[in-house]
């Protein structure tokens, strides 16, 4: 096999061509290194295109009271203080620069009257903070960086005669293994989806930018690519995952018709005035304001309505609570029998804004409902319910360099990395996350390569990777990968979903182990050429590891916080706030251990009102007043 193996040699391999991967690649090229960008889809199709609302950055263009400290506080609050403080700090400080530089690469954000980048309101953000382009901000980000990469390639072409001399995109290629030599990363092994032919990229550094895990669940806003590849690759390479129990169920996914169930309805609908009602016509969110948020959210309709025009003198409408709160509220309303026949509630913007404004501010939402559900959102309410949207958990990294803990040469940025968002991510913080930490991963990997040099791979490590790819073809009459995937999605959805209990999680762990056992005998029909059944066998393997990690982490955490709700432990507990759950893999199963959460340094501790911190921290932590 080694004589047929297609081989490349690069300084850095970036896996994933969404926002984080592309931003990392731009940075690595600027550092003078040679970069391979690998993606499972065509170039420019990554899930980042689906991001709608905007990118959070405290530029202060709409309200000049905004600054990084306010953004930092909002992010920590949203994450229920389980965030890695350093990531939240870097993110809040660097987001404005990352947005501004996109303009110099050609991005065209919507403008304020003064001609600055406009910023919109979003759940959990104290001030209007999200730079946006209508409701297609993700597309703008990915296209801008895609075109930035093309511009760099054109320049390289002029200077070297070959546009791909420094950056080359390998589209429709799946990576199945991170190879290691002497305990350090030596490259990435995979296959072309088109031909099924195997490829090896020798490189001393690999940046994981593979996004999320949504396809593990039955109802999700994620595309087929969200199969936790980077999470699983990191685990198998000896890395850790942190806090995998925290999954964000976005409160507003479409619920009808069945074929679009889970498809995202942007939070901007609520940011721009949309209200949630149950089938009794009650605006129910007023009944679900948690104590920790009572001073920031209006408890009556009159004040909530005034807020849209006068934010200085009124509290925010409760529709704009962090996503976990809204998702649980909708879940409770439906369970109490006040949901629609399709298991959702109503989200209505038609009574709040004129039709032409809706079409201008929310063009893709209008389009999506009109084309796919036959609903005109300028005249009627939408039917919405929670959908699996984002994983807060991810690869444990060093905040400054994005280096994966425990695997020299491995880096991770964007959704695949953990820690930044704590137990719940605020809307708009994912696009800023992938810009800030995508760049940092590019810097981190470049510095690593410059100081460590090459790390050639051994033939033995390639042989192992090759055998794994061949296996599904050598088995006849085994399990159908599509059927197993469906089974896993049912288990994850029903037993590890938005509300959890000990008994259900234990059942899930047993069932996932059973599916994993059966997946060993999975077989595929047809040849290697563009064969989706074959492709799914690797995705399935990744999703099974993720599901195991999530279920086991969730079983251990005996409290409810953010994207983890235990029916048997409904309250938030300050003791549990001091604990991260670290997943690791021994080649056979995932184990989860506890690790102390890094505590807030004094200068960040002091940014908060002490009475607010008392709601989250133990008296001992409060008395200590920060870690230095």
């Amino acid at each position, binding site marked *: 096999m080694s004589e047929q193996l297609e081989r490349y040699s690069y300084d850095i391999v970036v896996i994933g061509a969404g926002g984080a991967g592309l931003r990392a690649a731009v940075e690595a090229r600027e550092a003078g290194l040679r970069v391979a960008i690998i993606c499972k*889809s*065509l*170039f*420019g*199709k990554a*899930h980042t*295109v*689906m991001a709608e609302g905007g990118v959070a950055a405290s*530029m202060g263009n709409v309200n000049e009271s905004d600054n990084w400290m306010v953004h930092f506080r909002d992010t920590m609050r949203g994450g229920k203080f389980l965030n890695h403080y350093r990531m939240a700090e870097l993110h809040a400080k660097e987001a*404005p*620069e990352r947005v*501004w530089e996109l*303009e*110099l*690469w*050609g991005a*065209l*954000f*919507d*403008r304020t009257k*003064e*001609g600055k980048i*406009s910023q919109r309101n979003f759940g959990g953000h104290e001030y209007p903070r999200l730079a946006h382009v*209508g409701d297609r901000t993700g*597309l*703008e980000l990915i*296209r801008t960086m895609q*075109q930035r990469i*093309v*511009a760099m*390639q*054109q320049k390289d072409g002029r200077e070297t005669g070959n*546009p791909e001399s420094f950056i080359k995109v390998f589209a429709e290629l799946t990576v199945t293994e991170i190879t290691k030599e002497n305990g350090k990363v030596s490259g990435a092994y995979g296959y072309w989806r*088109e031909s099924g032919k195997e490829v090896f990229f020798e490189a001393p550094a690999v940046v994981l930018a593979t996004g999320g895990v949504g396809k593990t669940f039955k109802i999700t806003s994620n*595309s*087929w*690519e969200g199969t936790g590849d980077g999470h699983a690759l990191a685990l198998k390479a000896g890395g850790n995952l942190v806090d995998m129990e925290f999954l964000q169920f976005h409160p507003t996914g479409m619920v009808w*018709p*069945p*074929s*679009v169930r889970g*498809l*995202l309805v942007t939070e901007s609908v609520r940011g721009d005035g949309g209200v949630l009602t149950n089938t009794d016509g009650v605006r129910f969110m007023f009944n679900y304001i948690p104590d920790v948020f009572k001073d920031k959210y209006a408890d009556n309709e009159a004040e909530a309505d005034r807020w849209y025009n006068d934010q200085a003198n009124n509290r925010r409408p409760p529709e704009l609570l962090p996503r976990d709160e809204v998702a649980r509220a909708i879940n409770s309303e439906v369970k109490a029998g006040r949901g629609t026949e399709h298991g959702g509630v109503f989200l209505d913007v038609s009574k709040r804004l004129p039709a032409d404004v809706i079409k201008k501010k929310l063009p*893709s939402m209008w389009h*999506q409902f009109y*084309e*796919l*559900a036959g609903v005109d959102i300028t005249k009627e309410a939408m039917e919405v319910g929670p959908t699996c949207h984002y994983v807060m958990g991810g690869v444990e990294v060093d905040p400054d360099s994005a280096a994966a803990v425990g695997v020299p040469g491995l880096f991770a940025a964007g959704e695949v990395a953990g820690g930044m968002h704590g137990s719940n991510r605020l809307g708009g913080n994912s696009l800023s996350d992938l810009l800030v930490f995508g760049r940092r991963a590019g810097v981190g990997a470049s510095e690593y390569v410059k100081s460590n040099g090459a790390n050639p791979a051994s033939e033995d490590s390639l042989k192992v990777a090759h055998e794994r790819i061949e296996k599904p073809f050598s088995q006849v009459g085994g399990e159908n*990968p*599509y*059927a197993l995937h*469906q089974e896993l999605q049912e288990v994850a959805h029903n037993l590890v979903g938005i509300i959890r209990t000990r008994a259900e999680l234990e059942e899930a762990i047993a069932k996932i182990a059973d599916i994993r056992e059966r997946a060993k005998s999975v077989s*595929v029909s*047809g*040849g290697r*050429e*563009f*064969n*989706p*059944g074959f492709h799914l066998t690797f995705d399935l393997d990744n999703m099974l590891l993720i599901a195991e990690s999530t279920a086991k982490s969730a079983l251990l955490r005996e409290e409810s916080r953010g994207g983890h709700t235990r029916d048997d432990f409904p309250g938030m507990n300050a003791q549990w706030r001091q604990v991260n759950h670290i997943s690791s893999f021994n080649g056979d199963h995932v184990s989860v251990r506890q690790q102390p959460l890094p505590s807030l340094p004094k200068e960040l501790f002091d940014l908060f009102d002490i009475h607010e911190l008392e709601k989250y921290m133990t008296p001992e932590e409060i008395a200590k007043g920060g870690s230095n």
Partner: protein
Amino acid sequence: MARTIKLRIWRGNAKDGGLQDVTVDANEGEVVLDVIHRVQATQMNDLAVRWNCKAGKCGSCSMEINGKPRLACMTQMANFEEDETITITPLRAFPVIKDLVTDVSFNYKKAMEIPAFEPPADLKPGEPRMEQIDVERSQEFRKCIECFLCQDTCHVIRDHEENKKSFAGPRFFIRIAELDMHPLDMLRNRKQKAQEEHGLGMCNITKCCTEVCPEHIRITDNAIIPMKERVVDVKYDPARWLGSKIRKRDGIL
């Protein structure tokens, strides 16, 4: 609520292939991509089809449905008659790889030929000031999801492989128009280059591209025609030609 429908799906590769009949269930509210996925999961595990977001936002599931270039995720099954046989074939303008998947690398090559955005050299991050009205013209073109349906339907290249070399296609005419109308772009002569190097002159404005655009971008009216008109203006009016050489636009920053 499920009904049984008849599909005729093209299966094969670059060497050969043909239409295969299949019957499959369709449920209320489903789109063509749902039905293709059901065929894939139950009858043809190795049926090749590209897709991603299933929400009309990524432009991956482009194919021809009853001969029309469409996104499979945005084509409702309810549009078809009860007893109609729906024919699904790969994009005709591009070489087949397998089944419904084609080699669209032509488009990425053309993207590489369009001169990049060129902001003023001394512009610093955070400095740009632009009016909403000035960014909206380019924003319309930046809605493009690169589904390449406009490229597929364009008769200049649909059945004329020989034209591909000198013709960038509608997707890249809107890219050029977008940059040309971009308030911060300083590169001159984009329209002339479109005419001379990217085949703008070969377009004879049949508007087929505008008709198939799932984002409803007015490709012909807002990008192609204005560029063609300006090219003619500048070419035949010496004063305007001179003006275009002196200053692209003033007072925008």
